[in-house]
């Protein structure tokens, strides 16, 4: 092997005829980059080198998994703020054309969009020559059952659990994204010239009695407009705040749920549910993540052991094994 490709020598020595730089202008620069000799990290993925990684993953994942699992299971105890959801199944809120059927500008209070909604809203754009506010299929199909919860105690009349309507939507949605159209004090005036969605019982400015929860900034509406990702979903309906007089928030007892049926689900073979849940830092109850973490942690631990065996078995031929197999 007489071939000498030891370019490093040239770095030190430089070209022999150094003064003739001008004549030798075509000589490529001898830099690490151009000669592809940049210092590089060469990951070696042998059993020996990756062993620690697996044990570390195992050691980290298993506790995390346990932590998540426990948290998730603790959610059952109805203490602190309780969240009241309505659930729908088999409702494809994520249908491509359904998802598009809205006009964000209109919902943001743009007066021109209010009277001339986007074409995306078709066929729920105009009704009887009046623009629909809010337009589109999403708004049109808004969930409009009402749920009321009563605690039945033996001695007194059923106690209506106070359900808080506000604070269920994202803050940014309520304050930035959704806005009522500008104009006078009266909300009805502001929506003048528009008509209610076909399926709605009442126009948008009559959704709620409270002024800051009416019109487009009605939180039930906002929540509905945030289209669910999966066909079986729940949406936050009310908040049951922890109060002084009730402890825990929902004490054990008999409850009475009063539902005003407005919303038909037969057409799509749907189901309605009501869910009560507390919320931890990781959202609602879901054991999946915890179990997954524990599983992966264990697998990785196991693999670590397997690798340890491999490494031990091939140790003798270990690094030299790289050469001799």
């Amino acid at each position, binding site marked *: 092997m*007489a*071939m000498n*490709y030891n370019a490093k020598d*040239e770095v030190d020595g430089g070209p*022999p*005829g150094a003064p003739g730089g*001008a*004549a*030798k*202008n075509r*000589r*490529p*620069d*001898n830099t690490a980059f151009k000669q*592809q000799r*940049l*210092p590089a*990290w*060469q*990951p*070696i*993925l*042998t059993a*020996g080198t990756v062993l620690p990684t697996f044990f570390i993953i195992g050691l980290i*994942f298993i506790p995390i998994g346990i932590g998540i699992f426990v948290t998730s299971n603790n959610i059952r105890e109805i203490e602190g703020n309780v969240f009241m959801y309505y659930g729908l199944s088999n*409702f*494809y809120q*994520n*249908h*491509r054309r*359904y*998802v598009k059927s*809205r*006009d*964000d*500008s209109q919902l943001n209070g*743009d007066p021109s969009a209010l009277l001339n909604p986007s074409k*995306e809203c078709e*066929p729920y754009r105009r009704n009887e020559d009046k623009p629909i506010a809010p337009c589109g299929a999403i708004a049109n199909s808004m969930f409009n059952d009402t749920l009321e919860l009563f605690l039945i105690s033996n001695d007194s009349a059923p106690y209506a659990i106070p359900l808080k309507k506000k604070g269920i939507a994202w803050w940014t949605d309520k304050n930035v*994204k959704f806005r009522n159209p500008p104009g006078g004090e009266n909300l009805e005036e502001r929506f003048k010239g528009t008509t209610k969605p076909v*399926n709605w019982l009442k126009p948008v400015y009559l959704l709620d009695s409270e002024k800051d929860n009416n019109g487009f900034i009605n939180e039930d509406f906002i929540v509905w407009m945030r289209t669910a*990702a*999966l*066909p*079986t*979903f729940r949406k936050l309906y009310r908040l049951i705040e922890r109060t002084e007089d009730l402890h825990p928030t929902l004490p054990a007892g008999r409850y009475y749920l009063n539902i005003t049926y407005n919303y038909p689900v037969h*057409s799509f073979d749907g189901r309605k549910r009501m869910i009560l849940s507390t919320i931890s*830092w*990781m959202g609602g109850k*879901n054991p*999946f*993540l915890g179990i*997954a973490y524990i599983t*992966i942690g264990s697998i*990785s631990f196991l693999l670590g052991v397997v690798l340890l065996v*491999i*490494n031990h078995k091939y140790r003798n031929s270990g690094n030299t094994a*790289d*050469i001799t*197999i």
Partner: protein
Amino acid sequence: MTEPLQWTRYHWRRLIGGANRDNDERPYNYSSLLACGGKTSQTPKLAGKHRVVVPHLRPFKEEYEKFSGAYMNNRIRTTKYTLLNFVPRNLFEQFHRAANLYFLFLVVLNWVPLVEAFQKEITMLPLVVVLTIIAIKDGLEDYRKYKIDKQINNLVTKVYSPKEKKYIDRCWKDVTVGDFIRLSCNEVIPADMVLLFSTDPDGICHIETSGLDGESNLKQRQVARGYTEQDSEVDPEKFSSRIECESPNNDLNRFRGFLEHSNKKRVGLSKENLLLRGCTIRNTEAVVGIVVYAGHETKAMLNNSGPRYKRSKLERRANTDVLWCVLLLIIMCFTGALGHEIWLSRYEDVPFFNIPEPDGRLTSPLLAGFYMFWTMIILLQVLIPISLYVSIEIVKLGQIYFIQNDVDFYNEKMDSTVQCRALNITEDLGQIQYLFSDKTGTLTENKMVFRRCSVAGFDYSHKVNAKRLESYQEAVSEDEDFADTPSGSPSDMAKPKAHSCRTAHNGPLGSKPLNHLSGSSFALGNGEGASEVPHSRQTAFSSPIETDVVPDTRLLEKFSQITPQLFTPPDEMAHSLPLETLCIMDFFIALAICNTVVVSAPNQPRQKVRLSSLTGMPIKSLEEIKNLFQRLSVRRSSSPSLASGKEPSSGVPNAFVNRLSLFSRIKLASPVEEEGSQMSESPQGSSNSTCHEETEKQNSGAGVTNGKVDSLPGQPLASDLCYEAESPDEAALVYAARAYQCTLQSRTPEQVMVDFAALGPLTFQLLHILPFDSVRKRMSVVVRHPLSNQVVVYTKGADSVIMELLSVASPDGTSLEKQQMIREKTQKHLDDYAKRGLRTLCIAKKVMSDTEYAEWLKNHFLAETSIDNREELLFESAMRLENKLTLLGATGIEDRLQEGVPESIEALQKAGIKIWMLTGDKQETAVNIAYACKLLEPDDKLFILNTQSKDACEMLMSTILKELQKNNRASPEQVPLSENLHQPPVPQDLGLRAGLVITGKTLEFALQESLQRQFLELTAWCRAVVCCRATPLQKSEVVKLVRNHLRVMTLAIGDGANDVSMIQVADVGIGISGQEGMQAVMASDFAISQFRHLSKLLLVHGHWCYTRLSNMILYFFYKNVAYVNLLFWYQFFCGFSGTSMTDYWVLIFFNLLFTSAPPVIYGVLEKDVSAETLIQLPELYTSGQKSEAYLPLTFWITLLDAFYQSLVCFFVPYYTYQGSDIDIFTFGNPLNTAALFIILLHLVIESKSLTWIHMVVIIGSILSYFLFALAFGATCITCNPPSNPYWIMQEHLLDPMFYLVCVLTTCIALLPRFMYRVFQESLFPSPILRAKHLDRLTPEEKTEALKKWKKTGKMDQAMSKYAGYSAATSGRRPMSGHSTVSAMMLATSYAIEQGNVSVCETVFDSDMPQTSGVAGPPKD
């Protein structure tokens, strides 16, 4: 005019021309031509295969318009686009690519409301980006061309203006056909023109064609016959002839036509009369010519075909996989369509979320499913990796950048480095299986060194010379360094164009005492040339190794017997002279004059040294004077119209000045003059020297008697002369002759002057030159011998040809037996030379009587003036002359092996590349070079195919084949090739190693349809094949055969014009920019300066490029499939409605921005094994040959992994968020983020080396993703409806769940791939992986490990057979003496068996390469 149009026009014209030729019996009859022109008067260019050029002057106006009006003018436009047509034309061209059309189709599809998946505008984005990038690239390229064109078009030249009656300055672009152009020295020729006048009294002019073909030697051009003899410049006004010549074509070496004077007398025109556009006038004060081809019709422009486009094997592979992706896409879309239909038909009522059409109608499920199919195609479009093509192009540019910047390819001597001319086949370099190499100039240096000669049957071994050459080898490095250092004045560096001839010597050799003969002149030369600057570009003829020949003492002794006294009464003494002495004399004269060497002196840049025919020539006899006058009178009479009435027109130097300048050409060797051309242009300055010269010449005439020519100060010293030849062996012979004091002093078309030691200067009247061609394989000069005054033909050529042409009867009375003896002895010597790897040439002569000559001349003139079949006629004419020759002797020239060739060949063979050597040299020379460069090893069994008939060839092949199969029956895995042609056996593994030698004639049989298979089968058993005596066509046919029938990757490497066809045919063509000009380089894909660079180019860069690109392509497929499948899985949860859970912008940018840079970086910078290791372990190359990095299986595994990862990436978040109140885009965000991490970390796992650049790019990609998502989420409140990711990323970044989901998803997705790599690396490491480990060791450990590796090579091999793949062997097998003997026996036995078959038996001298004189590889 646009190029394609031009092209079609050209071809159409050729077609028409061909038809014309068939119809017309005498197509070149002028009247028929006119008639032809008359028939189609509007388009005179229809005149067929020829064009008529008449002067662009008033008297011919009508005729001019008729003939030349439609010819192109000299304006050139190489740009594709104009400002106006750029956009449409560029778009048009871009949409020729299928990929772009697919994109366009998607865009259009998205405008159909029914199937619209994204917003219309967004789908256009990728297409627009891709188109813009390419358009910008094209535009910039074109703009650069435009600027160059403009510059060239506006160059100024002197064109004759009929109005002003003088030559005026005009731009190149305004030159038209028929214009008269006057050029001065060092000016560039603006268009192809016929030379009508040269200030040179002999009517010659020199041009340098380096701009055209890179050859730096001067070429001689001649004034059209009939104009030669004029004393003053041609007057355009009086020019009444017309020129007919062939239609524009791109053959640089051909020009046929004739010049018809007004009196219908015709004069033939050949390429000797044509000045080519782009060349430079040298050594000639001024020339005048008439333009025949201009602009795009010039030969230079027609030869200018832009860069070449080839599809690499890898890309073809990738293309099939793209088709698989298309199929996959269709399946997925069909699934979506079907799913949607089923989903829809489940509902009896209309659910809320199924929106009716604007008119309230509902589409039927079937129709909706059909629409959905197209929607899905738009949605999942990314599955077809459109950006792959753009990325591949970018990656290849990066790879080429690194190849070109490799300092190892830099050649100090030539200041050149590797050139990548084809931009898109870098990865093919990593997959070469067959290498076809030229010999001369490729494996050897093509620096011809005179080694031995045989004269009149006596061999002169030149031992001292041989020793000198050996010692030179040690000194060579310093010497070259010295020669290379530009030690000269700064003015010379500033004028690289100033052609100074290299001094013929420098360094230690010049002062060696061995040079006793030329010693004195050397000393002088050194003194004179000390200030002379060696030219920065070394050429073959300048290095001392070639120019200095130490004469053989024995020959010198004999040589010294030649005295002028011997010739005093030339006719009587001829018989008494010993034959041998005569032979020696003739031999050296032949060496000196039988060539086309241009003489120049070093101190006069490219200045031809010649003596005026009137003053300098020592007149030998009255006859000579008579001859001279005859010649002059012929000259007069041949051009009566021009000779009379000459007027010195303004602006043209008159005759007197001409003559002055003529004298001034004889330059003094004075270092004061830096540029001879300047001097020669000023008659004032040279007048002094003229007087001086006159006296000098008188002296030199006297020098005849005292024989001390070289001591005269006025005469250029012999050692100072430079010889520039078209082929290096010519120069070598002239230098050799010079060493024996037979110095070629000057050469003009009319005469050659030789300074013959004892006899003084001899002037040979040059009657004819029959140039060398590859068919005749010889060249001849016809001269009138000054001593005997006979017409003598000196012929020099390949021994096989010359030997057949020798006369049977002895012409000058010597006994036949003696001739026969000389012949036999010389043949023996020739065989001996060839065995030592020397190039052999035979020298012969023939004396003709004047009548014989006259008769021949008559016929020859006929041949010369014909346009039709001129080549054949000339060939016949040559055959008539070159016969009945008398053998003088033979020469052996050595062509040394290039540095590092044996090592490179060894490494390449170890790398599993089969090397074939294709050469035009004779068998013995070829075989010896093959041994010397380790192509064949001494213990290889050598089979020689040399038969005269096809049947014999077939028989011999089958015998050899049987023998080989018998010997190798032991190997079980040997599959009969006939069944499995594309997987030839790997003969390295076999017990016997064989080499095959086949000669050109036999090759012809072997290439025939019926024998091809057998031939290939045979060669598959041999580790090396040598094809000798192969013609260029055969070379390319061999390459074609192997390429097409074995379906292997082929590489052809060569340096000369004869390799061009082979280079073009091979998958990868490599040109060596060596001594033989640029034709091979022009045709090549890559150009290197030395053969040894090939090993790094293939083993390192080829390997890298291939692995990089294949990994990148696989990664691209993986990336796109993995990402797109996320969308696909989501379809199962949205009723197959085509919803994407990701914002469209993020979706588009994900491919376009966030994950586009890392694969490109990966494709450019990935380095699996270091360069050092790759060089040291050529075996690693086999992985590329077998396409291990990118097998079909690899593709499917990659896709499978992509499917798995996308499943994980989708379902982990799905189960996490199942049943929660998560909305679409909030659900998509962790999916997207996890996908980003998975895709990028996948790259990290796959990378074998990560530099800071990788890190920057990967981190940059991640950061850009988050920044974009945050910025978009913060600002986009109502924009981009309906997909609105407002504030989602912000929410998620505060949500621990988001992190937990992303981390878990990433880990699960990458776990299998990671484990696969870990297990692979620790349990079944591939050789590449094992080599990678070597890189981590310290140098000492590494050498140790390498040793071990090589030792275990065989064991490894045994295992590998088991494992189903064969690693290339290392180390060569010790071979017992017994097998050598058997090989010999075998060869003899064939000979016996096949009586009539001539089997060439070479003695298998096992230590031959060592004992042979071939300069072997530097021993390590």
